[in-house]
C-alpha cells in the first residue's frame, strides 16, 4: 500500500510537470526580452553585453489552453516577463508599449527599479549587461465576447523604446489566435 501510494504520487507529480509544459505554451506565456534587438521576426538568440537571450514572435492559441481555463475563465489571457536585459553598450531608460491594442489590456508591473506607470517607463537607466532586478510584468488581455470567435483576436506586439530618444529598440510581435501554432519562448515553464 505504501509503495503504491508513493508511486501514485510520484507519477501524478511527473504528469503535472508534463501538463504544465503544455499549458505554458498557451497560458500566461513567459518570454525574455533583450534590447536592442530590432524587429524579432523569427526565433533568434542575441549575444551582447549580458547573457545570451533567446526571443521569438509570440503566438498564443486560445484553443490550446487547459480545460479548466476554457470552461471557467476563457475571455482573459495573459503574457508575462521577468527578464528585460540591456545587451547594448550604453545605459538606457526603457519604455514599454503595446501596439495595435483594440481592447482593454491591463498592466501589472513590479520591479526593484524605479518605474512610472503612467508612461510605462523605467525611469532609471539600465546599465549595459544588466537586467531589471526583481521584475514581474504581466499583461492581461480582457477579450471582449465579440472577439472570441475571431480567428485572429490580437495582432500587435511589444515595443521597447529608448525613453530619452524615442527610438525603437526591440519589437516582439504578439498574436492571439483561435487554432494554430504556439511558439514557446526561452524561459517558459521555468521560475524566474
Amino acid at each position, binding site marked *: 500500500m*505504501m509503495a503504491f501510494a508513493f508511486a501514485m504520487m510520484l507519477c501524478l507529480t511527473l504528469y503535472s*510537470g508534463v501538463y504544465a509544459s503544455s499549458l505554458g505554451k498557451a*497560458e500566461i506565456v513567459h518570454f525574455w526580452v533583450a534590447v536592442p534587438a530590432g524587429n524579432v521576426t523569427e526565433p533568434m538568440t542575441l549575444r551582447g553585453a549580458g547573457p545570451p537571450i533567446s526571443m521569438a514572435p509570440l503566438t498564443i492559441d486560445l484553443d490550446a489552453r487547459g480545460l479548466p481555463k476554457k470552461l471557467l475563465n476563457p475571455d*482573459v489571457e*495573459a503574457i508575462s516577463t521577468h527578464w528585460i536585459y540591456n545587451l547594448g553598450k550604453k545605459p538606457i531608460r526603457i519604455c514599454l508599449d503595446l501596439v495595435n491594442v483594440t481592447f482593454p489590456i*491591463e498592466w501589472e508591473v513590479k520591479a526593484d527599479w524605479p518605474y512610472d506607470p503612467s508612461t510605462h517607463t523605467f525611469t532609471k537607466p539600465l546599465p549595459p549587461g544588466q537586467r531589471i532586478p526583481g521584475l514581474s510584468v*504581466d499583461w492581461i488581455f480582457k477579450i471582449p465576447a465579440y472577439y472570441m470567435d475571431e480567428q485572429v483576436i490580437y495582432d500587435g506586439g511589444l515595443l521597447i523604446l529608448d525613453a530619452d530618444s524615442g527610438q525603437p529598440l526591440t519589437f516582439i510581435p504578439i498574436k492571439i489566435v483561435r487554432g494554430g501554432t504556439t511558439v514557446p519562448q526561452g524561459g517558459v515553464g*521555468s521560475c*524566474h
Partner: protein
Amino acid sequence: MSLEGKKQTLLNNKYRYLSWILGFLFFVGPFAFLTTLVYFAIGNISSPDLHTICLRMPLDWVFSGRIYNLLGSPVMTGFTIIVLLIALFAGPLFCGWLCPVGSVSEAISRVLPIPKKFKLHIRDTNVTRSLRYGFLKGFILVSILVGIGYAGVSGICCRYYPSSVLQNLVNGLLTQPSALDYWHTGAILVLLFWSLIGGIFTFGGRGWCILFCPLGAASGLIHTIGARLGFYRTIKNEKYCKECGSCLDVCPMWAIGVGGSIERTLCINCKECVKKCPAHALNVVWGKVKKS
C-alpha cells in the same frame, strides 16, 4: 464538535491562532510587515508580498542547478534556510504557526461546519508519509529534468502555486479587484485542491500542506533529524496514555497513527494534541528523555 468544544479548542490554542494572524500580517501583501522591514533594511524599493518568500522556488533552483538564482534572491533564499534551520532545532514551526497558506486552509476547515464523514482523512501515517514523499521525489525529478533541459516537462513550482492564489485573492478583496480577473488552469486547479478539497473537505484542512508542499516535506525530514539529535519534538508518554484517541482527532497533519505513534515527518509541533490530551501524555520536549 459541539460549539462548547470549539470554544475550548479556540481557548486552548489561542496563541497558535493568534500566530496565524501574525504570519498573515508578516508575509501577505499589502501588509507584509516583516518582509517590508527586511526590504527596507537592504534598500530594496519594491513592495513585497507573499511571493517574496516563495515556498518553492529556492528548492526548485537547488535541484535544477540554478544556484545563481539563489545568490540573486537573498531574501527568498535566506527565508528558506531560516525555515529549515528552525525545523531542525524546534520542528516545522513555520508550517504550524506562521505559514499563511496552511493557516488559511486550516482556518477555513475549522470554521465551516462540514460533518467529519464528508472529510478525507487517511489514518495510516505510513500511507500519508508515502504520498508526501512521493510528491517531493516527483518535485525533485521535475526540477532535475527542467534543469537538464528536457523539453517534455515544465517546472511545477510556479504553475501550481497556492501562495500566488492566496495573494491574488487578498489583492482582489482588499486593494485591486482586477486581480481576480485572470485565472490560468494551474491557479484554478490549485484553488480547487488547496481550499476546497484540501481545505474544506479534508480533515484538519491541511491537505495541500500534507501532500503538495515541498518546503513542508523538506522541513518534516529535517525535523526527523533534529528530533533524533534531541531537539524540540512532540513525544507521547506511554505510561499516561489512556488510548482515548483524542489526539488522533485533532491532529491537522494526520501525524498520529491509530496506535498513537507520532510520525515525525508529518508532525509540525502545533501542540493541538498536547492541549487536547486529557491524560497529559503528550508533550513537546528538548533533550534526551527517559523511556517510561
